[in-house]
């Protein structure tokens, strides 16, 4: 590709953010009516008090489109200014094509490129990196990046799966990524990682095309093959280690230190994970945001939802060093630093 670097933005930045969650709130007490669990058990182990569930045939794409419109408005652009749509989800509306196509239809943006990113809990970070590459290479000017999930239609509400089911909620968060308004602001560094050796520590095996046919003829909805599975303790331990490592890696990449971080926006898988990461980095509550108590784990949507809430609360200001960090199924993980 022949293009003068002088014509291209040197950095991308997040120009607008938004989120959308369904109206229906499901508390721990609500779940304890159908699962052998208690509010105390869930809160002690995860920090979650409640989560939102869709209550009709609404999938993750309609939530995504609503979040996107808020982000677009806050970015000060029109939907027609979007020239690339990226959607991250592990709970797509339909099997294929992905949610990006469905969001494109809802926003009336036929013609622009769209694709789904299936990187689970780290999906939003992977999409920010992709958006950054497209903007810095002239492939797009405004990239719509959306994480959206409807988990509630894909959770097993039985005691066998209660340790997984209580953790997840529905929601969507979006960001418009575009050229940074000034050369020193925007994305400073981002690192991305994966380790497939632990893929089955947090997974949904099926339907999966490793099998022929991908869904056995004698399959029934009770088959664990069709429900998410997690080795919670194993995932917890790796999450604390890897998130801390990737934040340190990002700081080292730009010659900054832990003390320079203004705010960490971590993936919301478990409050205890984030508390241990904060402790390891010497960060107080004032420098690490969390909202898992109200939304649970919304996977690809956790970071943009939390980023939106933190920004709306005035806890992120121009010039702040803002860190986004994630870890999840794959395993995948990473961290990004923005000069906001």
């Amino acid at each position, binding site marked *: 590709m022949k293009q003068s670097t002088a014509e291209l933005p040197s950095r991308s930045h997040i120009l607008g953010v938004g989120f959308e969650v369904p109206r229906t709130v499901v508390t721990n007490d609500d779940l304890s009516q159908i699962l052998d669990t208690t509010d105390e058990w869930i809160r002690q182990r995860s920090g979650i008090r409640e989560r939102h569930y869709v209550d009709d045939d609404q999938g993750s794409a309609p939530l995504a489109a609503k979040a996107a419109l808020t982000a677009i408005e806050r970015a000060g652009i029109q939907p027609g200014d979007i020239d690339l749509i990226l959607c991250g989800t592990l709970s797509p509306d339909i099997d294929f094509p992905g949610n990006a196509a469905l969001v494109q239809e809802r926003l009336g943006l*036929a013609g622009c490129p769209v*694709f789904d990113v299936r990187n689970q809990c780290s999906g939003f970070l992977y999409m920010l990196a992709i958006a950054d590459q497209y903007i810095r290479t002239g492939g797009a000017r405004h990239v719509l990046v959306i994480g959206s999930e409807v988990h509630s239609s894909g959770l097993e509400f039985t005691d066998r799966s209660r340790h997984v089911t209580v953790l997840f909620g529905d929601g969507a968060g979006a960001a418009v990524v575009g050229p940074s308004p000034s050369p020193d602001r925007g994305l400073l560094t981002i690192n991305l990682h994966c380790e497939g050796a632990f893929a089955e520590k947090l997974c949904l095996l099926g339907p999966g095309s*490793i099998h022929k046919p991908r869904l056995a003829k004698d399959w029934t909805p009770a088959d664990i093959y069709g429900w998410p599975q997690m080795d919670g303790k194993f995932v917890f331990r790796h999450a604390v280690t890897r998130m801390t490592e990737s934040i340190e890696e990002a700081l080292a990449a730009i010659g900054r230190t832990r003390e320079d971080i203004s705010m960490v926006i971590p993936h919301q898988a478990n409050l205890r994970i984030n508390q241990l990461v904060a402790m390891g980095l010497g960060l107080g509550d004032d420098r690490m945001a969390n909202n898992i108590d109200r939304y649970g784990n919304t996977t690809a949507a956790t970071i943009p939802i939390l980023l939106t809430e933190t920004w709306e609360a005035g806890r992120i200001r121009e010039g702040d060093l803002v860190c986004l960090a994630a870890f999840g199924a794959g395993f995948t993980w*990473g961290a990004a630093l923005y000069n906001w």
Partner: protein
Amino acid sequence: MRSVAITVIEEELPAQIVDDAALAAELGIAADEVSRWSRGRERRESPDGEGPTALAARAGARALASRGLSATDVDFIVFATNTPDLFFPGSACLLQGALGCRTVGGLDVRSQCTGFLTALDTSWRFIATGMADRVLVAAADTPSHFNARDARTPQLSCSTADAAAVAILEAGEGPGEILAITVRNDGSRHRDYWCEYPASRFREGTTLTERNRLPASKAAEGRHFPAADFDRLREFALARVPEVFTETLARAGVERVDVTLVAHLDPRVEGELPSRLGPAAGRIEVSDLLYAGGSSLAVLVARAKKAGRLASGQLAALVTAGSGASWGCGVVRVP
């Protein structure tokens, strides 16, 4: 901004060849009906337990070896598939483990029939900006694991097969250089070629315990199998591919290419497109294999090069269209 080139590309096909008669017997239809869709092309199918990652891992190992590299030399992985091994996590993570790469980034893209073009378009940018020096791009699909294998909707089983290819991208000009890629989508046509279930947007019953993305009733109806409207896909491809071809050649700064490689679910399109593309398309190259989704173009490049039908440094256009709806074109110098 650095120029980026495909320095090696290798394909991997399953060992098993399923001929039209064998498939006809399995589907319970006449052999000539299968032949009407397969049009003499070879059908390779991978067995139970061998998904896209296993195919991509073999192609990837060969690509690395032919370039004199080890898996630890890779610093980013991009995997395009429409038929992932697991529902989650994605196949890039599995490939990282299978090849023994370092814990580098592993990106899974879902772009259906334009999967390879989207993966290429994303990957070269990571190198151009300096975020990565060497990206392993995998495109693999196993539609034989996914399609309905019965007489209800036999066209997809008759028209598709399994395959994978891996390309390695590095900074550089000359042979393999990526000159321009354009991918476009129209989500309003997502039902032209789609698979409805599992579907997070649907649930059955009114209580939480009844929720299920893949209710047994929908599975019984076969709505977890892909469905395609071949006529709509054909009409769309014939209208849109010439547009994106012209646009991409202009962006690449070339008036014509030496060869155009065409991949489409419907073999009729491969026969009809050349006249729509005109002389700028040069020689037309189509596959002797059945369609393998987003990996088809990558496999076609690898096989044509191996057979000596593509010469290093030739200008090549890669065109495709399909599910999404998605369509696109890439202009590259042959590696």
